[in-house]
């Protein structure tokens, strides 16, 4: 009975298990198939996704390429710009800068990005350049502001624009900036202004020179007449004539006038000064022992003058009278600055300079120089006056000094004519120092002797004198006749040319400037056509111009400068006839 029950139980159990297994197996099989489908689905999905990714990647690459190109173009544009361009965020740190920016501030681009100006240059304020807060707060652009930055090249002046870039909400999100280095531009402008000033000064001087030249030329002619006639009187009157003294006095005065005119002429710088080898120490000593000097001392009794002359001072090439004039003018100038009493020191020294010096439109290159210094402890010169002290009449008009107002101008002109250099230093209330540099020379001092009259008398040679001024002709004629020559005078170059067609002359004396017609050179040229060997002397009260030189080149010999003296004329004629 139990066994049956058990076996029933067992078979029902078996049935259960069998059915269960069948069910599970079926499910499993189905699941496996479904699984395959699912895998395929996933695979399809995956492939799809891969395709999408590939396409997206392609798109991205394409965009990258375009972006790269555009960036490249932008970078080229930015870097080609001569203007500094920069881009900063609201924290004032640089996001991007162009090449020239990096070059000018002297920092590599990669060091700049991400830092603010203050971080790059702590303690080196660029002020506006470094600080953007005004732009950020107001949202307004700042244009054309000047500021200064320190760079490896030194301080540079730049013009800056800063422009805010705003987001959609109107808030500033970054700043775009441009800066131009205008240092060189400003420098060039300044130089231009200086040059313009120089030109104006030079033109002024030239105008004055022309004026002075004109006055001098006529003055010389007049002097020639004066001096000539006086010399003739001197010759004609007996030795013991009581009027001799007056004549001598007059001649002396005339000589002084000549000097004055000479000085005027030095202003034109067309003058060919008769330079000799001289020594400044001698000239100074001569001056100190001269009567002129005594006059000065009398006029300014409270003034003590010392000299400190260095021994073995090298020589210089110069005109003694001009140099004396320089010293004289400087001393008088110094004396005037010492109202009651004071000291003036005249000193000389020897110096070698390495670097060129430049002041008052004069400049000297390196070399050996003799320096003449005149120093006083007087009232000094105001800085504004100091700039203009050599201007003609400035000392008289603006500074209220006495004299002609040309004293300093003459000093300047003489220094320039001697290829020198002058500098002035002054402190108001303490004193003034003038320093004059003259190029030293190896040459030796020569002595000039005057020849007695006899040595240059002639023997009847025919001399043709051509001058448009009657007095000039008369005087020359007289002098030459006295000297033993036979003289013909004509009043114009054209007449001379005509005359020589039918006559001959052993020597021509041609005035250079003769009014509207032929001048001396024209005349000489014309005459040379028919008389190629014609001897001639050019005479002029003016200057040894290019035309004179041209005439000399063509064959004329001596150059005779008015006013005439016996010696000058005699020597010139003799020399020319014996050539």
């Amino acid at each position, binding site marked *: 009975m139990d066994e049956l029950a058990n076996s029933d139980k067992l078979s029902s159990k078996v049935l259960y298990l069998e059915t269960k297994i*069948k069910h599970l197996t079926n499910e499993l099989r189905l699941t496996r198939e479904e699984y395959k489908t*699912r895998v395929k*689905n996933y695979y399809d*999905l995956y492939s799809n996704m891969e395709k999408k990714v590939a396409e997206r990647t392609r798109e991205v690459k394409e965009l990258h390429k375009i972006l790269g190109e555009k960036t490249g173009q932008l970078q080229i544009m930015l870097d080609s710009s001569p203007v500094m361009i920069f881009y900063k965020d609201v924290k004032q740190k640089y996001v991007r800068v162009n090449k020239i920016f990096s070059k000018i501030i002297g920092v590599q681009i990669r060091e700049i990005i991400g830092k603010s100006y203050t971080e790059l240059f702590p303690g080196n304020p660029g002020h506006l350049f470094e600080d953007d807060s005004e732009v950020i707060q107001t949202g307004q652009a700042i244009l054309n502001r000047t500021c200064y930055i320190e760079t490896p090249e030194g301080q540079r002046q730049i013009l800056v624009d800063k422009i805010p870039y705003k987001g959609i909400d109107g808030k500033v999100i970054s700043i775009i900036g441009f800066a131009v280095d205008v240092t060189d531009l400003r420098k060039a402008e300044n130089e231009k202004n200086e040059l313009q000033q120089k030109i104006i000064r030079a033109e002024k001087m030239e105008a004055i020179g022309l004026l002075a030249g004109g006055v001098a030329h006529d003055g010389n002619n007049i002097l020639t007449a004066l001096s000539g006639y006086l010399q003739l009187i001197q010759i004609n009157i007996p030795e013991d004539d009581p009027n001799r003294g007056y004549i001598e006095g007059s001649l002396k005065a005339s000589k002084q006038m000549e000097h004055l005119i000479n000085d005027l002429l030095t202003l034109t710088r067309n003058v060919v000064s008769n330079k000799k080898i001289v020594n400044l120490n001698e000239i100074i000593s001569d001056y100190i022992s001269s009567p002129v000097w005594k006059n000065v001392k009398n006029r300014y009794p409270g003034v003590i003058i010392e000299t400190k002359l260095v021994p073995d001072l090298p020589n210089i090439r110069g005109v003694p009278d001009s140099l004396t004039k320089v010293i004289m003018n400087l001393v008088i100038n110094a004396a005037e600055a010492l109202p009651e009493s004071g000291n003036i020191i005249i000193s000389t020294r020897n110096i070698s300079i390495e670097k060129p010096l430049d002041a008052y439109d004069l400049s000297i290159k390196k070399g050996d120089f003799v320096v003449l210094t005149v120093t006083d402890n007087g009232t000094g010169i105001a800085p504004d006056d100091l700039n203009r002290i050599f201007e003609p009449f400035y000392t008289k008009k603006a500074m209220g000094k006495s004299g002609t107002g040309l004293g300093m101008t003459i000093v300047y002109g003489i220094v320039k004519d001697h290829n020198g250099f002058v500098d002035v230093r002054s402190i108001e209330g303490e004193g003034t120092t003038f320093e004059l540099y003259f190029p030293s020379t190896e040459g030796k001092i020569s002595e000039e002797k005057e020849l007695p009259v006899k040595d240059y008398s002639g023997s009847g040679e025919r001399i043709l004198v051509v001058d448009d001024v009657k007095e000039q002709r008369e005087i020359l004629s007289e002098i030459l006749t006295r000297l033993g020559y036979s003289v013909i005078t004509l009043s114009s170059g054209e007449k001379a040319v005509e005359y020589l067609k039918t006559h001959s002359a052993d020597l021509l004396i041609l005035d250079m400037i003769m009014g509207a017609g032929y001048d001396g050179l024209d005349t000489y040229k014309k005459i040379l056509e028919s008389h190629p060997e014609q001897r001639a002397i050019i005479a002029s009260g003016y200057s040894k111009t290019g035309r004179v030189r041209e005439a000399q080149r063509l064959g004329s010999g001596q150059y005779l400068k008015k006013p005439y003296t016996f010696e000058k004329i005699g020597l010139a004629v003799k020399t020319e006839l014996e050539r």
Partner: protein
Amino acid sequence: MGLNEGRDETLIKLVEMTDDSEISSIKKIVSGIIAIINNPRSTVQDLKEIIEIDPPLSAKVLKTANSAYYASQRKIGDIEQAVIWIGFDELKEIALSQKVCEIFAKEELVDGYSRILLWKHSVAVAILAKMIYRRELRKRGDDIYAAGLLHDIGMIAEDQFLHDDFKNSLNKFTEGKMSLADAEFDVFGYNHADVGRALTDHWNLPREMVTAIGYHHDTFGVPWKFPVMALTLYISDYLCQMSGIGYCGFSHKIDETIFQRCLNALGLEQYAFKMIAEDLKKEISRMESRGLL
């Protein structure tokens, strides 16, 4: 016969009425999913596209994908991801149930009948039928699952459009005189199986499904070509009623012999069937505890 023609006409009229109603709102999705079920070459894309066009459905799908049950590590954000995560096959079912459930969503209880109860019954039938397919007949069972969900859809139509007559037939049934199907026949001239057939036919659902639904109370009237689905539906329907799952108001007595004939026709062992039925009950209670039913 005149009666048949008349019957067909009113049927057609009824079906046409549904076209403008909410019943028809599920048509597109349901037929789309069923088409996917029956197409071996259908892809995740196809399912995704069907779901996407229905916002409430999409929302529900995503919610499900992100639910604790599926325990995704990452938030599932789109349908494609949901399909992959939940699984193509599972999601077909989920979407289908989701959609069909929409028309069963009325609580009102009339004579022991309510749509909710009907829904529960339909789901149980669908699950059971699918189990039978898979475990005994070694078929995948997606299609019969769909058929199970839809098999009593005719009642919805009757309830909605011929409400009074429907109540009438319910009355007749509860009075105990005849089965519901007969009561319906009495009142309408047709029963809910006919309506279901007409409707699903109108929706162009597969022939087999249409037929199975149409004959789920009259299995031996089914044309010989499609017996399996119909038979399975019948016995599933029968068992669910017997088990008291969901709405059970179809008949007062069960014809055991017909039941057995059906089992035999399918080649099903009683014992095996009983086991499957047990599993169904387990599954139903599991779903109830999770709040899905």
